[in-house]
């Protein structure tokens, strides 16, 4: 009875509270639908060890046979996501897409994009609620000769799929799944759009190839940057540190172990028989005590003893960080910049859940730093003379923060997110950047933060912002500082080179003026060209020609070691650092 009640309430709950799941407005609903379908597709491919190839298509839906309107005016769309995954056996299709909370993701401690198993079926339900149209799935299991298609809707009371139509067809893919959902939505470009979401997905998943067919019919391909699949994460048991007393009691009650020490060693990760003994001693409890009897005072003693014991960090093969190389390549192929650096922190723990923070910075405008120097404007074809009161427009562009949880881009609620707060709390001034109080650092830069965890603590079910646990904030800051330090070295070298460059340039510019003025003062009795050359020679001696050249090209010196693992675009356009062949091809370098 209890189970049934819960089932009924989940679907009905959604129908009434869809904003909690990211369907608050038509624009966000379209994004959430794409997001859930893409997350599912990527997870399916990776679990089967297949390099993902996704096609995301958004079409304007025709209503009542009326011709489709323009994408900007349309309020009904069909989202179709096709993957090259292993395919889904026919008997499971209805449950995967048409039943909320189906699947094994909720109960296991293992890193995956979807955590609650609520996403794709919620999208199907949203589509059904707003358009009355069923969800359509095509899937072909590897090795089968035909694909099966299925159309179904969801019985919100029973949380059950209702199948309308089911047949086998010939499909041009050898394996894979395609899901189509028609829904009420709004398509806008720019920030918080489907376009941005897919762009960022490509950054954090450089092993995937994503083809995007936008509502206006244009096709964009995000090519692969690397060919290695992320290593498959493993399921783990909870880590003893950070687990709460209530959870401990529940686990003690449910355990199959007969002894307390056996329970500790068997049901937690990183607890050896020896450590279990130690914990029992500290808690002054008998290792042979029945775990079920460990309640009240005893449970509290046990809990305290656990907190006072040092355990190894949880195993990290349950996590699949993107990796420094992959992040740098992902950024390199998607975001034009001059300097790329990434860092993957060692695993840490919050509330017994292991997590890894990765951060990266892409800095610059992708012109090799030329925009940093004065002569950038001179390169423009025609420079208009400046009138009095006119000034060079100096943009104070703030950094862009791109956030990811388990490789999924987070778009909404940036300011509520731990990543954003940790970015603000980092002192970027230490790294040669400007930062006003309480704002992001200034400069042409993208700050990348990724949290990989078996359980990412979101502030809401819509998975938009990471909750602020102290341990998480601390790790993010450490990761940003590590990247920042390297950026600082590079920025300072750049600035030094720039000021030297400007120095020499300023003299060169003024020399002509001075020589000509002298020529006029002397009323033509002066060899202006000779004076110019003499002054230029002196300028060269004073500003040290070779030093500047060396700095401008960032040639070898002591900092070389520090910047060895960064990707750097030099002023002459060449690229230093490890860039994969694929990523080079992607940007045509």
């Amino acid at each position: 009875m209890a189970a049934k009640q819960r089932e009924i309430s989940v679907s009905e709950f959604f129908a009434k509270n869809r904003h909690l799941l990211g369907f608050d407005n038509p624009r966000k609903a379209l994004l959430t639908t794409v997001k859930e379908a893409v997350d599912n597709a990527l997870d399916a491919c990776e679990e089967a060890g297949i390099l993902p190839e996704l096609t995301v298509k958004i079409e304007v839906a025709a209503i009542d046979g009326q011709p489709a309107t323009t994408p900007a005016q349309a309020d009904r769309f069909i989202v179709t996501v096709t993957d090259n995954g292993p395919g889904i056996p026919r008997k499971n299709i209805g449950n995967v897409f048409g039943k909320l909370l189906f699947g094994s993701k909720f109960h296991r401690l293992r890193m995956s994009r979807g955590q609650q198993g609520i996403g794709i079926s919620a999208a199907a339900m949203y589509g059904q609620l707003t358009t009355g149209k069923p969800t359509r799935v095509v899937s072909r299991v590897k090795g089968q000769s035909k694909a099966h298609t299925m159309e179904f809707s969801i019985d919100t009371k029973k949380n059950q799929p209702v199948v309308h139509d089911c047949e086998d067809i010939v499909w041009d893919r050898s394996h894979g799944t395609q899901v189509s959902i028609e829904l009420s939505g709004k398509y806008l470009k720019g920030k918080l759009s489907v376009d941005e979401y897919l762009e960022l997905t490509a950054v954090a998943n450089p092993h995937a190839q994503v083809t995007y067919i936008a509502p206006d019919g244009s096709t964009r391909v995000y090519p692969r940057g690397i060919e290695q699949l992320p290593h498959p994460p493993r399921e783990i048991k909870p880590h003893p540190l950070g687990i709460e007393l209530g959870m401990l009691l529940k686990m003690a009650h449910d355990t199959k172990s007969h002894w307390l020490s056996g329970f500790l060693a068997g049901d937690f990760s990183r607890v050896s028989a020896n450590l279990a003994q130690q914990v029992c001693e500290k808690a002054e409890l008998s290792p042979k005590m029945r775990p079920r009897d460990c309640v009240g005072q005893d449970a509290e003693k046990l809990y305290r003893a656990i907190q006072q014991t040092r355990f190894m960090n949880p195993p990290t093969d349950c996590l699949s960080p993107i990796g420094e190389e992959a992040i740098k390549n992902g950024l390199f192929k998607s975001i034009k910049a001059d300097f790329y650096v990434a860092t993957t922190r060692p695993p840490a723990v919050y509330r017994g859940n292991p997590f890894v923070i990765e951060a990266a910075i892409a800095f610059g405008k992708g012109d090799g730093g030329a925009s940093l120097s004065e002569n950038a404007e001179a390169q423009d074809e025609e420079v208009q003379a400046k009138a009095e009161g006119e000034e060079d427009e100096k943009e104070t562009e703030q950094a862009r923060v791109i956030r990811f949880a388990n490789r999924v881009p987070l778009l909404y609620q940036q300011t509520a997110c731990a990543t954003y707060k940790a970015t603000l709390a980092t002192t970027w001034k230490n790294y040669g950047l400007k930062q006003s109080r309480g704002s992001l650092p200034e400069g042409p830069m993208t700050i990348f933060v990724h949290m990989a965890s078996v359980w990412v603590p979101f502030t809401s079910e819509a998975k938009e912002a990471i909750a602020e646990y102290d341990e998480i904030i601390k790790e993010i800051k450490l990761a940003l500082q590590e990247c920042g330090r390297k950026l600082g070295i590079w920025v300072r070298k750049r600035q030094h080179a720039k000021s030297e460059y400007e120095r020499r340039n300023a003299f060169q510019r003024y020399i002509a003026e001075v020589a000509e003025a002298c020529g006029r003062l002397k009323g033509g009795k002066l060899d202006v060209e000779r004076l110019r050359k003499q002054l230029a020679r002196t300028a060269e001696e004073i500003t040290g020609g070779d030093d500047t050249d060396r700095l401008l090209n960032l040639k070898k010196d002591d900092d070389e070691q520090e910047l060895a693992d960064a990707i750097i675009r030099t002023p002459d356009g060449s690229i230093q650092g490890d860039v994969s062949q694929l990523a080079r091809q992607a940007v045509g370098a």
Partner: protein
Amino acid sequence: MTALKARKSNREVADTLEGLADLVVKAAKKGEDPKIEIPVRALSNVEFNQRKRIIEMGDNTTERTFFNLGMAKKFMQTLLVADALKVLQQDDISSSLREIYYRTKHTIAESSENTFDDQNESDPIIEDLEVTLTLLREELHVRAAEAGSIVGPVTLVEGGDVIDCSRQGKAGKTVPSIVEPGEVDIKKCSADFVLLIEKGTQFNRLSEDKFWRKHNCVLLTGNGQPPRGVRRLARRLHDEHRLPILVLVDNDPWGYYIYSVVKQGSINLAFESQRMAIPTAQFIGLSSFDPDKHDLPRNVGIKLSDNDRRRAKELLNYPWFQKKEWQREIKNMLDSDLKYELDALANKDFRYLTTDYLPRKLKEKDWLD
């Protein structure tokens, strides 16, 4: 350099300017950094000559060199201005500060940088050249704004025209910026004193009321800080016709400073004091004690701003304001925390200045030295 010294010829001035180019050429030949020694124009480099009672420039100089990033642009600008000034000599024409700014302004080749961004950059360079080359502004053929007027029993000869300043209507005769002998000559003057007035409003009031006729004086105004022409003309009336100079200004720190500039010379143009300053000039008002003496209601006063208070305290420290009476005068203003404009006298009557205030001042000889 005194008023009596003969003015330099165009040829001499042009040669002096050309000297700057020689200096650059010489340094360039030796591979050295060209340097121009410029006397410092700041409070740190002026001295109050107690005997002559004028502000004189000290001997401190600063080097302006080319191969120094902070100075390179200024160095270039200095040569551009020198070049423009030489053209004025060659063509024997005069020009204004603003025209020189426009003449020297252009975009530097292969950049979007302008040689000058605004006039505030070129004006000081002209002053630098004046002090560095010890040339007068008149000798450089640079006119200042003609922002002054004169009315009264004086006859001037300007460019061959005989001008009777008592027959120039209410607005009076404009004072040209260059009033050196030859340009302007004082042919006749029967006045007893000169009243130098800060603001045009009071000048107009007194001119309209023919105050100068009744009290036999010359009225002069510079509309604010008097320009060089007005100061120089007052000095010549003082030198050539022995006329005492009385200064009438608002009662605020700015008014005090205008008076001190007329009397001792300015800090910025200390090198001109010899020709400009009138050490016997007297301060007739408004005094900080006048509101009481003339029953001005408190509500026509203006509260001193932070800036006013700061400025007043600076004045208290100037060597030329060390007399007991002056310390009392300024401290009284600070104590009342109020300043008064001359215009406030209109609160009593529109013609209070003409009929009461000034006659009483003159009768009681109520002024400060």
